[in-house]
């Protein structure tokens, strides 16, 4: 689900963009560390493969077909960081070339699908991919990857105030559940077929390494998913809680404080003030990210 522009409220897309910029920067560095720079064609071509894979339909019932989404499959073959980078490139191309997904909403889409989706898909494989439960881990990874992205996207829409009656929410969750199971089944079938062709394609997860950390991560993701679902069934409750504890007003003052001093007198209209403060904030964050990035790069090359 690529969220277009216009769906997310300003605090939501701005927060996601601000969170996505350093996260993508980090994951790109991580991918570069494990990859020779000149092997960049491989990642690009595998991205093209994921696009093309949508043309191969899997029969899943009477007259309906499904296709591979691919985040988990890439993570099992290229490694999680490289798979994330490939998914980032796919999301960028979808948004720019195919107008599928927004530009302001790209931070949200990147986090949902390229970062959380891929990492959530890799987690079960990382934990149990080496042992007896290998097949189940591969299946769970595929399902988990899709489910995590879908739940995140739904939560962002809900937080943005897109109204979703309980029935609609239930139906979409059920649909997501079905497509998650299908993604798991397709991923498992393709991985098995790949291993018959050439076993070297699929990575071997190291066994017994930081199991606890992985388990904590998995638990955190599960908890977050459950929390989001609970919150989305009672969004008013959360809002009430926020009002009661005064979190909402705190957050608001926290966000506006740094720029309230800069309100220019001739900007009489409230929105103009807000929008210019928002733009200035974005520019500041952008500048900070750029400077930090340059500094890190210089330190590394020195």
């Amino acid at each position, binding site marked *: 689900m690529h969220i277009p522009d*216009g769906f997310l409220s300003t605090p939501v897309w701005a927060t996601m963009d601000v969170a996505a910029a350093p996260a993508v920067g980090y994951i790109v560095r991580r991918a570069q560390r494990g990859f020779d720079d000149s092997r960049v064609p491989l990642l690009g*071509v*595998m991205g093209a493969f994921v696009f*093309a894979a949508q043309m191969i339909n899997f029969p899943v019932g009477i007259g309906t077909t499904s296709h591979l989404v691919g985040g988990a499959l890439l993570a099992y073959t290229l490694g999680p960081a490289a798979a994330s980078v490939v998914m*980032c490139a796919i999301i960028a191309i979808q948004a720019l070339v195919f107008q599928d997904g927004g530009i302001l909403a790209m931070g949200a889409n990147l986090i949902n699908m390229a970062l959380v989706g891929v990492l959530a898909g890799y987690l079960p494989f990382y934990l149990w991919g080496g042992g007896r439960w290998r097949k189940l881990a591969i299946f769970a990874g595929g399902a988990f990857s899709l489910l995590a992205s879908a739940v995140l996207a739904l939560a962002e829409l809900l937080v943005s105030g897109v109204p979703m009656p309980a029935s609609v929410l239930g139906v979409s969750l059920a649909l997501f559940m079905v497509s998650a199971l299908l993604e798991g089944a397709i991923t498992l079938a393709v991985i098995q077929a790949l291993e018959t062709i050439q076993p070297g*394609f699929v990575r071997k997860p190291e066994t017994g390494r930081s199991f606890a950390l992985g388990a904590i991560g998995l638990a955190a993701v599960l908890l977050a998913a459950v929390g989001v679902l609970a919150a989305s069934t009672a969004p008013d409750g959360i809002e009430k809680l926020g009002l009661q504890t005064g979190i909402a007003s705190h957050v608001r003052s926290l966000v506006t404080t740094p720029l309230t001093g800069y309100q220019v007198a001739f900007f009489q209209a409230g929105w103009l003030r807000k929008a210019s403060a928002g733009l200035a904030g974005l520019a500041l964050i952008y500048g900070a990210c750029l400077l930090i990035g340059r500094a890190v790069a210089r330190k590394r090359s020195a």
Partner: protein
Amino acid sequence: MHHVVLERWSQGASVMHRRDPRAKIAALMVFLVVLATAHRSLPAFGLALLLLLSAALIWARLPLFSALARAAIVLPFSLVFAAVCWLSGDPGRGFALLLKSYLSALAVLLVVATTPFPALLRGLEMSGAPRFLLMVAQFLYRYLFVISEEAQHMTKAAASRGATVRGFMAGARFRAAAGALAVLFARSYGRAEDIHRSMRARGFLGRFQPFTALRFRGGDAVFTLFASLAPVLLRAAVERGV
């Protein structure tokens, strides 16, 4: 295919096409933020922005109606949500979703249709996006077509062998599709290694050497200023007038 048309459009020679990609990216961001934060008198503001974008499309000598139709690609997704909004008694929000998603897509289309993709990526790189990621995106764009065609050939071949016949065992068909994907994966992987080898043989060391440097001229600065001011002034005018 969609991106072939875009590719042709982006080769134009209008004033809009000749602007530095960074100027267009900056103006696009301002446009999107101004649109995303608008809440009052949306119909009038939406109409004003639609006229602004249409004027820009004509100025860029792009086919207006096919561009307008092409941006409608977002509408099916938005329509579902707009219907839900309407059913739950908030038609205003549904309208806002439709309007904002359509106009945003049209603005992005305008920029992408007047900037060749490699130039756009270079503009993004100069604006601070990670180079490695952009190179991956460039390779992806380059081979998108090639691998998609291969996938099409494979599905056609499978269909001619009876893969789409109804009543055929679904389990077997499922496994066959998985096998086809695995073969496509292996072929893509092999192709990537060939590409890598031949690029290395030609002296590729992990980064592209652009033939011409991007230069941000006075005209680009003027364009950025006016293109950024236009949506802001329109919004001020519309909201003042109501």
